[in-house]
């Protein structure tokens, strides 16, 4: 097995606050969507967030037991914990309905095998990868100047032509091309960096190639735009519930 980068894992184990925040930033949205799917819309958005955070709390308790050498993906492990937390929440609710009101005993997700019902779907693994790409893009945005990154966003994410961008921005077309090249290179680097940081198995690292992010120039841009569009769609799809709740609350004013 390939020697994977375990620096991030070490930071998690040493209770580095920044690492835990990064974990939440990267895996949080995917986790929330997964919990929402588990709960089959039985939970309110607030409960979904609570359960997601409960998952991370459980993760914090068990993080010392995670061993990437066994070949288990980190995302799969997280999935399994989330599954147990959601089941626990359902059990608690049923107990409450019966009048018992007692939270069920703690589950030990690590020792239980992954059955067919608890195996993560490809969608979930894909959403985790998209979250990593999103994180890489944000990192590039932080490192680059504002103007080049805006040019790249306009070209890739909004699908504008170089000529239109040049007119709208008030810069020349060669400048646009130069910015595109520079930003593309940085984005490629940061995505690679993020994927290496948050992946602990060889299979996870190979996802870059499977997503066609190892290709050159325009093909890389197309793959990136596709991943972004799916990620945006996914986040906005999940946000529908929140939006409905927020609109309802706003309407009550």
């Amino acid at each position: 097995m390939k020697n994977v980068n375990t620096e991030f894992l070490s930071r998690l184990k040493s209770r580095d606050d920044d690492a835990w925040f990064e974990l939440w930033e990267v895996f949080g949205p995917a986790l929330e969507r997964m919990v929402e799917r588990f709960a089959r819309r039985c939970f309110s958005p607030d409960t979904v967030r609570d359960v997601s955070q409960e998952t991370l709390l459980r993760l914090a308790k068990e993080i010392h037991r995670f061993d990437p050498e066994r070949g288990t993906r980190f995302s799969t492990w997280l999935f399994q914990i989330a599954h147990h937390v959601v089941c626990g929440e359902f059990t608690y609710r049923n107990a409450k309905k019966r009048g018992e009101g007692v939270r069920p005993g703690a589950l030990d997700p690590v020792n239980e095998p992954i059955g067919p019902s608890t195996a993560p779907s490809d969608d979930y693994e894909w959403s985790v990868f998209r979250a990593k790409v999103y994180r890489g893009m944000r990192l590039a945005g932080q490192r680059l100047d504002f103007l080049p990154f805006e040019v790249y966003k306009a070209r890739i994410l909004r699908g504008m032509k170089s000529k239109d961008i040049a007119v709208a921005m008030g810069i020349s077309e060669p400048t646009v091309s130069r910015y595109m090249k520079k930003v593309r290179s940085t984005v490629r680097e940061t995505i690679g960096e993020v994927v290496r940081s948050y992946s602990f198995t060889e299979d996870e690292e190979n996802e870059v190639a499977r997503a066609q992010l190892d290709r050159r120039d325009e093909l890389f841009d197309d793959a990136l735009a596709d991943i972004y569009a799916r990620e945006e769609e996914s986040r906005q799809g999940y946000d529908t519930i929140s939006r409905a709740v927020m609109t309802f609350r706003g309407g009550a004013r």
Partner: protein
Amino acid sequence: MRVFALPIFFLGFWEVMAIIGIAILVSYSLKRGRRHEQEQRYRRLPRPRPPVPAAPPPPVNIVGLTLALMVFPVVLAAWAIASIGDIFAVPAHLFVGTLTGTISLFITLIGGSPRKLWKSSGVQFVLAWKSLRSMIVRLFAMFGMGGLVRGKPKPPPIPASRHASPRPVPGHRTYPFEDRYRIESLLGAGGSTARLFVVRRVDGARPVGDRMVLKYFDMGMGSRLEEVIRESRGMQVAKDMGIVLDHHLDRNHFYYVMPYYEGETLTRASARLHRHLKADEGLSADSIRTCLAWMSELLRTLDGYHRQGVIHKDVKPDNLIVTEQGVRLVDLGLLTPLASALTLTTHGTEFFRDPEMVKLAVQGKRVRDVEAVRFDIYSAGAVMYLLLDGSFPACGPLSRISRPGPMALSWITSRAMAEGEKRYPSVAAMRADLEAVIAKAAESGYDAIPVSALPSFSGFDAAAEAAPPPPPVILRPEPKMAPPERLVPISGRPHRSNSTGSAVAVVIGVLLMIFVAAGAVFLLLASGGVERPLSEGAPRITRDGLFSAPPSPGMVEARPNPDPPPAITPAHIVGSIRNWRAKLADDLLPSTSVGDLERVPVLLVSDGTSGADEIIGATKVVLQKSGILYHPSTTLAANVRTVLEPGIGAEAVRDFLLSKMAGDTLPFVIWIRHVDDQPRHGRCGYQVVCFYGPYRHSIFFSPPTVGRER
């Protein structure tokens, strides 16, 4: 006059009298229906559970039944006299209910949606049933069998005042503000445990002035001290800015009053703008102009907040009300002073909350140690995103505006939501860009504005200097805050009208005109004439009175002493601590010895002035030399200071300490504050307030002399 004479000519005298009689019945029924709805609204207000009533009387009173049977005709006559109102009310309500029901059915059949009429019809039937029921109950009661038909005991009746708003009744628990404000309705609750009411000031027995919003926290009804502390932090600044009109704080309650703005939320206004757009269609120029006008107002308001040294921290479309006067920012729940020493919290609303703020909060940063104005800038960018895109910025700083539109606006949105140093450094810089777009659009249209024409494109410094200073924030609410009845038409689009509905309304209006005229005569007679003006001697709350801050309940103000108090020195403070301990051990805590209290550390808290800080520094040295334990944490002292500043009492300080120091020994809190009250009490110096548990002691000292004792 001929018009009024015509019915008499055609119908004859008795027919006209019958019509007038019916009109009177109708107006009476409708008036009663309105009052019924008002009472129902009032009863729905959240109140603590009323006390359990006494046990009901036995169902059948044998003696009463026997006596009533002996004088049966007399009892029956008495019942008829007592029920005369209900005897007329039952057919009146049935008639009006049937009439309104029929009209509603007719309107429904021709495609209308007369919800109010249906509701009114239902209310009339309910009232008819109530009148019938009260007649039956009265009859049974007269025969000593009231218990058989009387249901569960009702809450005390609510007196129907002529002046519209229902009033709380004696015995029913009232809110502590109800002697000053009359509740009109309840608003939807937000994220806190507070309750929001629409109120009006009361002058004597009647409400006066404009409607206001009152936010009320009650410790006995689930509110927490932390919330009160958080909400009261920026209260003084908010009052200075005129966005809080009044506030009150005591041991168990806290409330503050804000102006009420009638309108719709920006969420709805934005949804209306995007309702008819296709997925790949951009906003029209009119819509963009409207959005930019709203954004400009929001930025001006935020700039005013920041200049006053506070951030709003919860800018979102639901907290922006679109009124005829413009966009108004509401909800001061998270108002935070920029100089606050408290730790940053993650409160806010997802999608409109800066992710960077969450990160800093997780790191435990204090508000004053970060550039907190940036959080409001991010939120303003997110609001702009919503206006331009019609959806939430789900991807945070990477969110893209999917609708085609001016690149310059996309640039402003992205820059407001950008991370790190790329974000606008101030609201003024963002506003300068926005104003530039508005100005240039008048010449060439939105799409023709290149991003390079924005002031921020070539560096913010020059732009900020060139930009005109924003007008200062309104220090007092505008004299006329009367809520408009009509909402702002967005982008000049007229409201759609239903021609069928209008025609039906005209027909119904003509039919009911006669009834209304007769009803008006009846009402005038019934109400005893024209409304009487307030007497000259009636008490009135003046504007000054409304704005005057209530005295801080937690503070004990020393009376002026003919002998000048001693100058403050560390030795005096140490002496005060020893005396206070002895007093506690002797009088207040008899089970505790002085030795026990000597093991309690002393926490010295300054009021933030340099003089008090200096005294505390010197006192710590003396405490160390004297062997008195003191609490070394400056963070805790700073936190306690923020609690003490609003003037919360000793118990609140204790609760705060308990929440912060789980398991540790609670310290003596010695708060040294500078007092400059020369004009009122002729004194200037330092007040040393000692807190321990629920006890408090206050001593006043003169300012230190030139040769300070160290």
